[in-house]
């Protein structure tokens, strides 16, 4: 009789324990998803700003058509990578790599344009350009801060999965370590320099 009660109690405690781990994993995964959607919003904002930038500098930069075309191309590629990632329901290993590559290319061609803007004092001082630069540099910061927050959440989620006791159950419940959103080339680590 007593042994049955003890066995039942142990089973109940074990079930509660497993439920706790399950719920914690779900909470952490949702936090990661939420942090990703923050990045997504800011990336979209940047892709929307780039046509504005091209329109603004076009009048001043007739000679650098190639640069402008390359930034539009990079923007479209990054935007497509973002779409593809969104459609697959969140970052997977391949789609994230794809996006990081496209983002790196976009950053470097944006950097080229900003360097060229320095050569046109009149353009640099113009009011629309100043507004645009503020919006661009704020967006750069937002992407960077959103990425920082995302990586912090990912680290928490991954660490919890790898620690005892969750390590016994995580993969059974369909949880796997998630890749961080890292910028992989040293030049991409610098923000696009936006001077005032």
């Amino acid at each position, binding site marked *: 009789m007593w042994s049955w009660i003890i066995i039942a109690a142990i089973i109940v405690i074990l079930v509660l324990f497993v439920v706790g781990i399950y719920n914690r994993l779900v909470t952490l995964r949702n936090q990661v998803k939420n*942090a990703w959607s923050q990045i997504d919003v800011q990336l979209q904002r940047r892709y929307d700003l780039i046509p504005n930038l091209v329109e603004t500098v076009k009048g001043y930069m007739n000679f650098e058509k190639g640069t402008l075309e390359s930034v539009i191309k990079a923007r479209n590629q990054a935007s497509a990578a973002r779409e593809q990632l969104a459609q697959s329901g969140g970052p997977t290993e391949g789609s994230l790599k794809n996006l990081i590559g496209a983002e790196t290319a976009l950053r470097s061609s944006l950097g080229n344009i900003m360097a060229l803007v320095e050569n046109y004092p009149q353009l640099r001082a113009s*009011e629309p350009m100043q507004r645009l630069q503020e919006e661009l540099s704020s967006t750069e*910061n*937002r992407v960077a*801060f959103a990425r920082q*927050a995302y990586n912090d959440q990912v680290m928490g989620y991954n660490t919890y999965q790898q620690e005892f006791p969750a390590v016994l159950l995580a993969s059974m419940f369909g949880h796997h370590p998630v890749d961080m959103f890292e910028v992989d080339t040293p030049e991409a680590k610098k923000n696009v320099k936006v001077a005032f």
Partner: protein
Amino acid sequence: MAMDFWEAQRRARLRTAFYLALFVVLTLLAAVCAELVLRYVAGDNYEPPLPLLGFGFLAVTFAVAAYNYLMYKQHGGGYVAESMGAYPISADTRDFHEKQLYNIVHEMAIATSLPMPEVYLIPSEEINAFAAGLNPKNAAIAITEGAMERLNRDEIQGVIAHEFGHIKNADMVISLRLAAMVMGFFFALYIGLRIMQLSQFRSRDSNGRGNGGHIMILAALIIIVAGALTWFFGTILKATVSRQREYLADASAVQFTRNPDGIANALRKIAKDQYHDMPKTGAAYSHLYLEDRSSIFATHPPIEKRIAAIEGHQYEEKPND
């Protein structure tokens, strides 16, 4: 060497806990002392006009503190900002500085994963800023026009990140609670003075009442002394806790921006600032500001010490700072 912001935050939190405990002990001690002294002086004829006076003092203190706290809680941070003459900034502003400020606040909201607070500008030439509101959902951040004009983008970001540190660490709750307690002590002092007036009036009026009047005066004196002492030490303790929270907010600013230069250079400019024209609506709000003249009552540590802490220099800390 850059600042170890995690370690700095842990240290500041520990010290806060210690000073808060000291605060409660101080209050209890004052109440027990008042009661004991009254019993001792009155001797065998212990007939207090108000039974258990010391505990009455305690009850009044906490009741007043609780009342003030609830009053603060009813109004969000925007109310505090507007009562100081600040005006709100909206997301679709056409002004360049206002838009930049809005953007910076938004960036910090993303970095801290906090909701976007209300943003206010204070019409003042001084470089200063504050955060108000008891929880992140109704918080407000205000910065002076002078700060927007004379700080660069990184420095403004450092200042805004410092204010976000106050929101994230719930410093407004702590300091308003402390301010409410200090006000409670002050209220006890006031009651003591009133009782004394009343009993003088009465003993002049009717001479045949024996030593009832004396006991009343004694009771009033004890309340006055207890109230004055706790008010005095309470003010110092409140300032001491507040200074720890400033170090914590500085360390948090470095965590959020990962850029110690922003807040450090902003503090350097503040140290050299010529203007001091902030609207002062009572000392109750002094803890909100970014900086304060240094003294034992100051709510902020000396700027040089804060810069040293941010940049990770060696500096000797005095035990009461």
